[in-house]
């Protein structure tokens, strides 16, 4: 199933739930009138925020969960500015126009020892990836999720339903106190993984990529570059790679093997 990439489409979804998780995060559950295309873990959607002069362009948001039987998808969103604020105010029954499924996806690991690290909204692609690997690759995911404090922890149960979950908080209010890279699971003699998947703030992903290198693990990062179109047309979302120079994050990514990137780490 991994390599079948569905056709991209523009579609009006109906909002069936707008669930506020905490001060910063909310989940939009959206229903398609028809049948969903195959959505791969790591893919994203470009969301339209209507009639607002300060949100002229669409907003890229990862797909957090997909339910083919109910034809619903979920988006996990953090209020970052005007656009996400507007989205947080949407009401059940409303319409959301999205372009999807966009981008590449996380790749199948060589072995079965994998670690999925998410920070902030970066946990979104980790849920769908965990679910996908269990169902399609027969791999039990191991999660390491980093938050500022316990109040910001996102739907822990849903992650726990898929595999073991380690938490770090910066203030120590839950799990290990510190940053994800300081967590024991990455700092013990037996710490080694076939692959580490990660999504979160760039500074976190860089630290993880560095750690993965030390541990001799492969590492895939999911970037959140600014995007103009999300479909490879505007060349605004570029990231500099060792093999091909500037490439589009929206089409060659958002998932990259960290070794490909000319990151200063």
């Amino acid at each position, binding site marked *: 199933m991994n390599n079948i990439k569905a*056709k*991209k*489409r*523009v579609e009006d979804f109906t909002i069936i739930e707008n669930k506020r998780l905490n001060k910063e995060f909310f989940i939009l559950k959206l229903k398609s009138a028809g049948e969903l295309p195959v959505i791969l873990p790591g893919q994203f959607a470009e969301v*339209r925020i209507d009639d607002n*002069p*300060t*949100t*002229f*362009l*669409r907003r890229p948001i990862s797909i957090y969960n997909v339910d083919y039987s109910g034809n619903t998808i979920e988006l996990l969103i953090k209020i970052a500015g005007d656009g996400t604020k507007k989205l947080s105010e949407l009401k059940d029954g409303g319409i959301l126009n999205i*372009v999807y499924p966009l981008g590449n996806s996380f790749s199948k690991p060589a072995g079965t020892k994998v670690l999925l690290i998410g920070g902030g909204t970066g946990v979104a692609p980790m849920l769908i990836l965990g679910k996908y690997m269990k169902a399609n690759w027969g791999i039990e995911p191991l999660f390491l999720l980093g938050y500022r404090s316990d109040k910001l922890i996102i739907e822990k149960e849903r992650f726990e339903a898929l595999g073991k979950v380690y938490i770090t908080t910066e203030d120590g209010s839950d799990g290990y106190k510190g940053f994800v890279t300081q967590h024991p699971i990455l700092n013990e003699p037996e710490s080694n993984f076939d692959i580490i998947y990660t999504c979160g703030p760039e500074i976190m992903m860089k630290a993880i990529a560095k750690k993965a290198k030390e541990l001799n693990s492969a590492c895939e990062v999911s970037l959140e*570059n*600014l995007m*103009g*179109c999300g*479909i*490879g*047309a*505007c*060349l*605004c*979302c*570029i*990231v*500099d790679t060792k093999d091909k*120079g*500037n490439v589009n994050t929206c*089409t060659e990514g958002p998932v990259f093997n960290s070794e490909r990137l000319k990151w200063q780490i």
Partner: protein
Amino acid sequence: MANLKTNIGKLEIKNPVMTASGTFGFGTEYEDFIDISRLGGILVKGITGAERQGNPYPRMAETPSGMLNAVGLQNKGIDYFVEHIYPEISKFDTEIIVNVNGGTIEEYIDVASKVEKLNKIKAIELNISCPNVKQGGMVFGTHCPSAVAVTQAVRNAYSKTLMVKLSPNVTNIVDFALAVEEAGADSISLINTLLGMAIDAKTRKPLLSTITGGLSGPAVKPVALRMVWQVAKSVKIPVIGMGGIMNATDAIEFFLAGASAIQVGTANFINPAVTIEILEGINEYLDNNGFSCLSEIVGALDI
């Protein structure tokens, strides 16, 4: 169903809806959304002689009803285009037009001559108005003698339809239009982006790596319409209008101002199917208002 045919110099296109260079990739990016072959033409992204990496990230900023970009002509060069891209996009049953760029007149000529050999490509658009490169680009487009020189040189080297795309960042757009018409242009494309800037008050940094960039989208539509109107009544060759076209009504405004065809740019980012919606909307407008040909509304502003 009105007659939508229109002419760009000697080239007849089946309808007036084209895509603006740099906003539609090579067409293939939009294949999932629309039938590319229904369009009047596609302007592929700007091509130079040698490969270019363009400007560093970040390259875009959102502005009120618009966006700034500073892509800086990232492309793999004309030879790569000829070998790898041309064969792939030749399948489209629409006019493919290459947006030709260069840092020097020689580079413009080099690209144009190589494109001339491609059978399926019947026109080029000379971009003398890119605000995002240090050499060439807008430097040619904001200095009248340079605009004439590059147009003449390419005219001598290229025999098919030669479109010239002007920069709006000038005092008198009509002077430039008349000069490039005289120098051999078959049509004038208007407008490229307005030079603008955006700043993040929080970080106190510019939002673009290049500090300034090109403004596009609905914000620039009033300026674009004005320039199309000024130029269309001054030159004899066709004018191709663009700048903030988001829907069929916007397109109609450009036709009324004097554009023989239009290009859709930034709107593609917001609605990847917008070109076909515009095409259908134009048809509907003509039908509803009793026009049988597009040409009846070109320059038909009632003043």
